[in-house]
């Protein structure tokens, strides 16, 4: 590849640490000071996990470790592949969103990162934690956030296929095709720089005009239509901001990423390749500092329409996701579900491997990233005591290597608040949080 005089931002950060002066930064389209970045990443799987009671049949597949918690916990079979990351993770037992417990068991993927209660008849959500982080970091990277899900799009309220919700609670569509994600983040734009620059400049004035014109269109609509139409107006407004951002990034070449080993054509018929590629794309986006915020919903809880439902069966397991979750207390059910949990944990473990083996500053990429991995059910659609773990963040004050048992009255929002605070997002509260979760702080 032709060498550009522009520095690859990643190379620069890795090699130079925090000491370089501003001029270099300016030539890279970056306004913020050169401290090392922090990142937020959340991965969600639906329907809970295998949770046989300690000592009962199949309890070796219990997602949570047995015992009273603390640092000397023993992994059960589901999470055994995380043993190598023992010092980088905290398994948290007991958490859930308090308001969300009132909702139907299938309705809670929407609120995993928001903590809102979707009330019947309105189904309004609120902003998700990752998007608060995206607002804080967005200006520093080419993309504000990377929002992924297996099903893609937004789904429907209570059956969301995205984890991310904007400031007003509007769902942010998730990307689900590896090749499109790759092209967007790392693909080379074959258009000349001049043409790109011209188009961006045009876009700015075009969108201004479209916005003004659309307001007059809105005025001619009925009341119901106006409400629907506001989605469009807001989108125009916010894409205008994106155009500005793109202009400032135009001179920074996209990172040169070798796609070898990525399964860019993986789809819902090849679950192992697909999930690992989605993780890889998040890893690459972080590694190249293309974004600092990523979410991935492995499956949504729409049993009737989720294309991810059949993943376990394609991997040779006896039932689909929903069936496994329902069968947790039947004979052999704890093991059957546990094996699915195990598969998912192996995928996570591989992601953590890659994050950890990439150095940044004096530590690794993982050390400045908070990873929240979990679900919004415990079992059979109960919305409490949700299996959840955090990983990474060692260099930004997270204490790991523990199995934390919390009381059922602790809101999950406390965890989200704490994660945001540790990555230096200036927030005092999040959703229904009451205080920071000091147990995970070092």
């Amino acid at each position, binding site marked *: 590849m032709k060498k550009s005089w522009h520095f690859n931002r990643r190379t620069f950060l890795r090699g130079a640490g925090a000491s370089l002066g501003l001029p270099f930064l300016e030539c890279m389209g970056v306004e913020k000071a050169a401290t090392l970045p922090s990142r937020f990443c959340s991965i969600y799987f639906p329907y809970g996990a295998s949770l046989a009671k300690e000592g009962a049949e199949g309890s070796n597949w219990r997602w949570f470790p047995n015992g009273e918690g603390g640092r000397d916990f023993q992994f059960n079979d589901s999470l055994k592949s995380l043993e190598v990351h023992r010092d980088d993770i905290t398994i948290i037992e007991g958490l859930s969103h308090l308001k969300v417990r009132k909702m139907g068991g299938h309705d809670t993927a929407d609120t995993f990162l928001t903590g809102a209660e979707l009330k019947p008849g309105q189904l309004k959500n609120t902003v998700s934690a990752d998007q608060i982080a995206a607002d804080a970091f967005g200006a520093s990277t080419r993309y504000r956030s990377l929002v992924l899900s297996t099903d893609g799009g937004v789904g429907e309220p209570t059956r969301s296929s995205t984890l991310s919700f904007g400031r007003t609670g509007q*769902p942010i569509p998730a990307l689900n095709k590896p090749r499109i994600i790759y092209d967007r983040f790392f693909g080379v734009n074959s258009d000349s720089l001049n043409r790109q620059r*011209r188009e961006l400049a045009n876009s700015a004035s075009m969108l201004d005009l479209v916005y003004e014109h*659309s307001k007059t269109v809105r005025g001619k609509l*009925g009341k119901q*239509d106006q409400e629907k139409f506001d989605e469009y107006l807001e989108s125009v407004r916010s*894409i205008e901001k994106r155009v500005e951002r793109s202009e400032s990034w135009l001179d920074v070449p996209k990172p040169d990423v070798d796609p070898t080993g990525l399964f860019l054509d993986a789809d819902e018929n090849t679950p192992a390749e697909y999930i690992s590629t989605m993780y890889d794309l998040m890893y690459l986006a972080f590694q190249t500092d293309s974004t600092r915020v990523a979410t991935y919903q492995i499956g949504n809880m729409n049993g009737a329409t989720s294309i991810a439902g059949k993943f376990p069966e394609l991997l040779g397991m006896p039932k*689909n996701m929903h069936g496994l979750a329902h069968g947790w207390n039947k004979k052999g059910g704890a093991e059957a579900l546990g094996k699915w949990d195990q598969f998912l944990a192996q995928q996570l473990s591989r992601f953590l491997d890659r994050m950890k083996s990439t150095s940044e500053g004096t530590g690794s990429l993982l050390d400045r990233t908070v990873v929240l991995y979990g679900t919004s059910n415990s079992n059979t659609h109960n919305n409490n005591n949700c299996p959840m773990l955090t990983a990474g963040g060692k260099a930004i004050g997270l204490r790991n290597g523990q199995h934390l048992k919390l009381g059922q009255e602790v809101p999950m929002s406390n965890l989200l608040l704490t994660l945001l605070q540790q990555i230096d997002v200036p927030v005092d509260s999040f959703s229904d949080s009451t205080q920071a979760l000091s147990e995970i702080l070092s």
Partner: protein
Amino acid sequence: MDRFSDLSKMRSTSIINLSGTLDALNSLPARGALGLIALLILLSPLLQAETLPPEVRAVLEEHCYKCHGPEKQKSKIRFDTLSTNLIKDRAAAETWHDALDVIHLGEMPPEDEPPLSSEERTVLTGWIQGQIDEVVAALSSTSGRVVVRRLNRFEYQNTMVDLLGVDLDYFSNLPPDSVSSEGFKNNGASLTMSPLQLEFYLDAARKGLRHAIINGDAPEIHRHQSSETTTDKKGDFSNRVGRGNAFVARMENFPDEGEFEIRVRARAELVEGKGFPRMKVRFGYRADTQAPAEDVGMVDVVSEEVTEFVFRQRIERFPIQSRGQSKFPGMMAWITNEYDDGEKFESIQTVEKEVENEKKAKKAKKAKKVKIYVEDPDFPKVVVESFEFIAPVYSSWPPNYHEEILFESPLRNTNESEYVTAVITRFMERAFRRSVEKGEVDVLMSYYRKIRPTVDRFEIAIREVMAMVLVSPEFLYLVEPGGEEKRSLSDYELASRLSYFLWSTMPDSALFEKAEAGQLSDSEVLKAEVARLLRDPRAGRFVTQFTNQWLDLGSVDRVAVNPEYYEDFDVLLKAEMQEETRAFFSEILCRDLSALNFLDSDFIVVNESLSRHYGLEKGPRGSTFESVKLSHDDPRGGLLTQASIMLGNSTGEDSHPILRAVWLRERILDDPPAPPPPNVPELNGESPDMARLSVRQQLEAHREDPSCADCHRGIDPWGVAMENFDAVGKWRDQIRRKVPNAKKRESWEELPVDATSELPGGIEVNGMSELKKYLVDQKREQFARALTSRMTSYALGRSLEFTDEEAIDEIASDFAASDFRLNYLINRIVESELFSTK
């Protein structure tokens, strides 16, 4: 069965829709004295009804309060405190409405409670109906409005292709569309907009316009011809294309854009008793990201005479590796034979081959294992005589689509500004699907003037202006301006509704002309247009979209077939199963047959692979779907026995009577059971006996639990009657399944099928044939209404509300009176007030 469970959620969509209209009504007084008076007149009878009439209360007390009263509130329904002001309390309105439904259906009071006497029934249902009628009347001036609706991905793609004339992929980057509660992807309330989408729209617009408005001289035409395939070591490249081998062509020169043609001259080698060989052409090559080739086309080769097949596509839709990268072998095309006779034959075999080992020549000759291709003599073949690639192909330069946008005009060279204005105006009119006003054009011209000085050719500036048109709301949405009052649609709006209903795209020029001339309000003209649209191949989109979504054919893709249970199952058959159902719909529509054929028919529509799957003795020989008459005693026929429906509602191992029943009630009878309540108790799975029971017995055990029985006695029996059809839709007399035995090893066992069932109301049916007969005899009106309401919902792009019921009832009964003809139904919907008002 209890339909009350979790009503608030189940009905959430309609409540949302209703709330808008109610809010609108509630805000009326603010609009002036006249409105206030009108409102008082409307409300006065309702205010009097605030208290429940004593005779109604007496019936409720006697039959309902026990479970839905002060002591118990089954399904969270409580009647003694439920508001009777249906206008103010919209949730209460919905609850009363559902109560009416379940009483009508005989589901309430439940079987184990004393039934309503006919007098009591009259009092209760009469009162509820009366209340609802009043609400309907009060709301009819504002209710049932079509919400401003974004084009969905499919409509967007079609519209872009029709508008620009360039068949590129405009939609793959767009996120999937949300599905409405009825399963439709064109519901205005469900379709959302986001900055990400808008960004993709702008990219797609610019990309499309770069191709549609050309800039430059006629490009050089590349030709490649070969009569022999390229070769490889295994010998699985051949001109004789049979099982597992391919004809491969390599082109060194090709353009990056434009249409290309692939011309294949080929003949068939047919085999007695087997189907036609099926030629598939794939094209494209990109080694760096391992992008696989894409399909160009597929066709049966039916003749042993040489025939020329011509495939035409845009090259931009295929993976191309950037030139100049090392080891670029050129562009590749593959011809394969996709026919599958279901036989197992290893085409690639490992054989021991005597080879001369040069280095150790003195030592003995060594046997070496090599892989070679072995031809199956009993497999029909495509014999490729020649292959030709031509690109780009164009009949004139500039191409027609370019001339369509930048049309010939004397102004062109004399007055650029006026010419551009004319060009933009025409483009806007087509994009906005209506006439435009000067002021609207001025906005775009101001943008044109802004960028024109920055570029050297006016075409470049025009592309930008047109891109702006393509991200404007009037293009991306079906915009129907309107205030609080209902109004008739303009001709243009009607034309758009019609073309998106039947073609999933913008109106064509003929329809535009009718709209422009104001002729669509003439019912004869409208009728003629409906007939014309339905005759056009684009009506196939309606068939595809409506059938897929109405019947949820996507479910087939969500079920993984377990190969342990169905060893020979070929995943490719799934797509053919879905196609069968669409072809069946198409057959009924095109031949103007009765829609009752959906319930049962004396024919099926299959191709070679499906007829083999079904075990038909005599079926079509090719991949084309054909109608096949069934013998009198054949249990097949109708939708219910189609593999797509059976598989989509199975576990991939066995049937799933509950899913099948829910599907039937929801999609065919429009009487969906309530979703399972939260925290459904698990069956006692620990009991080792449970696993040994047949599904039917398990369901019976399930219903012994009263909390399950409430709902499931109205569900399970429908599915049990379908037990003779296995997960992949084949007939069975035995249920084959794997059971753990004492030694923890797995073994297979067979249970006899028992498909006798008692439907709600004590109707006994024995198996699928009797179930279908019952549906045809007893449920035809209900089915007609269900189909009417689904199709109307699709046609309008919105959910129906109970204010629409009267209109739907009318359409449905006319539909039934027309001998259930689909053509009639479509026409009837189009001429209905629902369709022609905003």
